[in-house]
C-alpha cells in the first residue's frame, strides 16, 4: 500500500484506495455538521496556498539547488503533511469508477495548458480537464480559475469524455487541489502537465504517484507494430530492435495503461504492482 492509501483509504471501499473512499469526496463533507466553529478551509484558498508553497520550493532550483533537493526529499517523505498536492496516475477503468462516485462531475479548461502553452479552452469541445465535487460550484465566483466556463456531465457522459482523452493519448491523474478532498481527474501529458513535469524532471513525487498497476508485455503476442511506443508519456517504452518487440522498463512505468488500451493484439497487460516484490514499494 502507498502512503496516501494508508492515510486516507478505507478498506470498506474500493479496495482501500484513497480516491475511492467516499469520505474523500466533497459531497460527503456536507453531511458532517460542524457545530460552533468554522470549518478549517472556510473562506480559504487551499489551491492557491499550496500553489504558492510549491512555487517557493521550485524557485530554489535557481537560488539554492542543494536546498531544493533537500526540500523535495523532505516533501516526498513527509507523507500526509507534504505541502505538495496529492495526485496519482490511474488507468481508464479506475477513472470510470471515480466518475460514478463523484458528484458533480464537470469538464473545464486545464490550468496547466493555459500556463504552459497559453492554450485557451473555451467550450465543452475544447475543455480537457475534469473537475469533481462541490468545489465546482465555485466557478461562478471565480470565473478566471474556471476560464471558459464548466460543463456538468452525467456519469455516462463523463466516461465517454474520459475515453475521448484516453484515445487521444492523455494520462489520467486523480488530484486533490491543496485541500483534503478529491478535486479532479486531470488528462495529462508531458511537458504541459505540471505534475508530470515536476515528477519526471525534478523528482517531486507527491503530485504524480504511480498507479497500483504496472504494464507487462507478452512477447509471444506482441507483433512489433510499435503503436504503444508513442503512447507513453513517461519514456518507459522503447522499441527493442534486436527482438523486434516492445520493451517496457517496469521501473519507469507509471501504470497509466495507455499502451494497453492502444495495443491492437492485446499483448500488454496491467499487473498488480504489489504482486511483484521488486515493484511493490515503487510508487
Amino acid at each position, binding site marked *: 500500500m502507498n502512503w496516501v492509501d494508508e492515510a486516507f483509504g478505507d478498506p470498506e471501499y474500493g479496495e482501500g484506495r484513497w480516491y475511492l473512499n467516499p469520505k474523500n469526496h466533497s459531497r460527503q463533507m456536507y453531511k458532517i455538521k460542524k457545530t460552533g466553529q468554522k470549518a478549517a478551509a472556510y473562506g480559504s484558498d487551499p489551491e492557491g496556498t499550496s500553489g504558492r508553497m510549491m512555487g517557493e520550493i521550485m524557485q530554489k532550483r*535557481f537560488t539554492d539547488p542543494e536546498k531544493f533537493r533537500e526540500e523535495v526529499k523532505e516533501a516526498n517523505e513527509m507523507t500526509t503533511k507534504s505541502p505538495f498536492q496529492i495526485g496519482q496516475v490511474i488507468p481508464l477503468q479506475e477513472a470510470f469508477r471515480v466518475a460514478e462516485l463523484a458528484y458533480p462531475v464537470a469538464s473545464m479548461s486545464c490550468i496547466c495548458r493555459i500556463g504552459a*502553452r497559453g492554450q485557451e479552452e473555451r467550450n465543452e469541445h475544447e475543455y480537457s480537464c475534469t473537475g469533481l465535487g462541490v468545489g465546482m460550484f465555485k466557478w*461562478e465566483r471565480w470565473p478566471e480559475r474556471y*476560464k471558459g466556463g464548466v460543463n456538468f456531465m452525467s456519469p455516462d457522459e463523463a466516461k465517454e469524455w474520459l475515453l475521448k482523452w484516453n484515445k487521444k493519448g492523455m494520462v489520467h491523474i486523480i488530484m486533490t487541489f491543496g485541500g483534503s478532498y478529491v478535486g479532479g481527474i486531470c488528462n495529462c501529458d508531458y*511537458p504541459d502537465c505540471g505534475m508530470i513535469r515536476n515528477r519526471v524532471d525534478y523528482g517531486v513525487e507527491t503530485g504524480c504517484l504511480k498507479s497500483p498497476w504496472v504494464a507487462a508485455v507478452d512477447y509471444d503476442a506482441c507483433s512489433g507494430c510499435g503503436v504503444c511506443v508513442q503512447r507513453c508519456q513517461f519514456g518507459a517504452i522503447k522499441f527493442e530492435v534486436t527482438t523486434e518487440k516492445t520493451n517496457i522498463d517496469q521501473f519507469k512505468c507509471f501504470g497509466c495503461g495507455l499502451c494497453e488500451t492502444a495495443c491492437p493484439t492485446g499483448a500488454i497487460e496491467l499487473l498488480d504492482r504489489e504482486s511483484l516484490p521488486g515493484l511493490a514499494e515503487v510508487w
Partner: protein
Amino acid sequence: MAVPRFPTIIIDAAKCTVPFACKKCLQACLQSVFSVHAVKVERGRETDPSEAGAYGLNAGHRDKCTGCNDCIEVCPEDAITITFPPVEATA
C-alpha cells in the same frame, strides 16, 4: 558532475503586455520554458487576455533552456533577453 548552466531570462513587461493573447514564445519553445498566469484576478469576472498587464509571463523552466533563441526570433515585441553565464564561470 558538471554544474548546470542556467541562463538569466529577462522579459520586459513594458514590451510584453498581453502574453496570453500573443503566446508566440510559449508555443515556439522546444523546452516549454515559459508560462503565463493571470496577474489580475477578480471575483465574478474572467480576466481579459487583451487587457495590458492583466497576465504575466515568466520563464519558470529556464533551467531547461538550451539557448536556441527561437523565442527571441518569434517575439514581435523584442521583449526577451537571455544571458548565459560564461563557460569559465561554471567550469
